């Protein structure tokens, strides 16, 4: 295909991506270096019958004027990145010097909003992803062994947790584990402890969010593995059986190597998707015990005083996080591609 034709075919799609994905990133970078204007204050002396005193009032008109003239706010360099709500260097060094031991330090660290969110986001990503892969493979092996008539309905049911809107899926789970919901109430009566609440304890909230994540994503890896299993050659499996391999050995040494590229694919997708976890935190209203990077951006953007500078700084840090997370996988893909290309 000549360059010109290629250009005309790709241009609409490329324009959309550049305008609404690449430019926003530039806009985020600019915003992250600015901070909202301070309110314009006027101090005047007001004199009454009992003497004069200094009065400070907010000049509403001038403040509004300043904000429309320079909607970006004022330039603040890297302040947005280093302040208490983000990387919080000052607070960390203070906590470091004031803490007697590591656990005290970590306690203080995890009280800082950014690190609290980062801790949960990373835990969620790195717990959910391996669980999803192992569980998905197990379900795929199980479904593969089912009689033919049962496969269709099983796949239908299995797709549901993945296909359903994340906000809705997590809400459904949240209502069930509510103190008065079916699972929550059953657990209370099981442990005979009416005050037991899955929502009150941070550890249990983290666990429930992770359980939701696995429930939501396991179908994806199941389907990918299930399709992969159909491509494993039966000859190799039979040869392994004749050589005396038992079922476990056949899975370990024949099936799993065939699944390896699929594992890379699922890991890549899962790392991307789990790192952006947002909806379950909104549904579970879990901000007291668990927040995520996406959630703190969302909160900055939708609260009454929208903090664009702060949201942009967190966004940049999140993008850097995604990049670090995906670099090994992307590097691998690139290496494989250049190997096959030559």
């Amino acid at each position: 295909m000549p360059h010109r034709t290629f250009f005309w075919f790709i241009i609409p799609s490329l324009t959309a991506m550049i305008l609404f994905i690449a430019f926003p990133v530039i806009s985020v970078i600019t915003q992250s270096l600015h901070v909202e204007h301070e309110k314009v204050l006027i101090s005047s002396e007001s004199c009454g019958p009992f003497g004069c005193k200094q009065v400070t009032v907010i000049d509403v008109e001038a403040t509004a004027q300043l904000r429309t003239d320079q909607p970006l706010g004022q330039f603040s360099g890297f302040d947005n990145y280093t302040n208490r709500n983000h990387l919080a260097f000052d607070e960390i060094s203070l906590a470091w010097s004031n803490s007697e031991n590591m656990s005290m330090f970590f306690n203080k660290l995890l009280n800082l909003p950014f690190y609290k969110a980062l801790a949960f986001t990373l835990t969620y990503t790195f717990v959910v992803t391996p669980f999803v892969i192992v569980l998905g493979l197990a379900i795929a092996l199980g479904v593969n062994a089912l009689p033919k008539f049962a496969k269709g309905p099983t796949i239908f049911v299995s797709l549901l947790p993945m296909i359903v809107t994340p906000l809705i899926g997590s809400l459904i789970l949240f209502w069930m584990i509510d103190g008065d919901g079916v699972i929550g109430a059953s657990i209370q009566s099981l442990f005979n402890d009416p005050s037991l609440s899955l929502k009150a304890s941070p550890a249990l909230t983290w666990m429930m969010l992770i359980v939701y994540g696995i429930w939501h994503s396991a179908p994806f890896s199941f389907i990918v593995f299930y399709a992969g299993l159909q491509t494993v050659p039966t000859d190799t499996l039979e040869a392994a059986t004749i050589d005396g391999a038992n079922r476990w050995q056949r899975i370990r040494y024949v099936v799993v190597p065939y699944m390896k590229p699929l594992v890379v694919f699922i890991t890549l997708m899962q790392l991307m998707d789990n790192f952006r976890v947002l909806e379950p935190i909104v549904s579970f209203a879990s901000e007291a015990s668990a927040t995520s990077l996406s959630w703190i951006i969302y909160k900055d953007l939708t609260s009454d005083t929208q903090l664009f500078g702060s949201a942009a700084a967190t966004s940049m840090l999140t993008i850097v996080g995604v990049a670090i997370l995906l670099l090994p996988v992307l590097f691998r893909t690139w290496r494989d591609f250049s190997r096959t290309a030559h």
Partner: protein
Amino acid sequence: MSNPAQRRSTSLAIISTGFVVLWIMVAAPPFLWTLWGSFKVQGDFFSKADWTNALYGVRTMIETGDFFTTNGYYGAWVEHGFGESVINTTIVVVSTVIISLTLGTLGGYALARSGFKYSFWILMLALVFRAMPHITLVSGYFLPFFEWNIWGYLPTSIIVLVAINQPFTLWMLHSFFLNIPKDLDESAMVDGCTRFQAFRHVIIPVMWPGVVTTGLFSFLLAYNDFAVTASLLSQENQTMIPKIASFLGTTQVEGNVMFAVAAVVSAMIPLFILVMFFQRQIVSGLTAGAVKG
């Protein structure tokens, strides 16, 4: 399963079937439970006394005189105007799917047919874009959209969703077009068609399975989106998902959680119907990317 060595391990077969049954017990019941419970009153669905009340509708019987009540649905659809957000969702989803497929088929076709190195880099760029958390992009939209006065309207959200959809759409359609033999359009061009005519008359008639599958995923992405629609739509233009999210706050205060439950069930039903009819396409779509690597 005629192989005797495979047949021997009945205990393993029982374990693996048991495992699948266990998984089904985890996957499906939450939906059935919520569907059933949405026709009860709050005192049953969130029963302090006994969870079986939700099954038998004890309080529902006392409060409404019937085992089933549609009060939740009445509250959501009539009192809280859930219907409007359903219309908004329909507009957003249909437009997003149509526009993303139009842009995506053109781009995906070009990427599949061009052997140049830059087409690989465009695909890599798309993958990088795919990795961006949506909310980080959304934080870049606010100020420009406020400046241009286009914040809060449906078309803005549609175009944003189309753009966010593009990386995925391009990848998927690219791999579908790779499966259509090159000879098909190239022989048309030998016969005197231009590239676009070959695309129009030869490729379009055979590309529909791939387009339907990709369309399904675009549909799901637009329908399930929360980050974009919740932050870029004004109160009166809200689609279903942000509407449900805002229900959470208000209904909790009013003690009308059942409105939210009914809204959730209403939003979930179309998805189930979709899976029922397009299960095969969804499965093939999920694996298309994986098999190609």
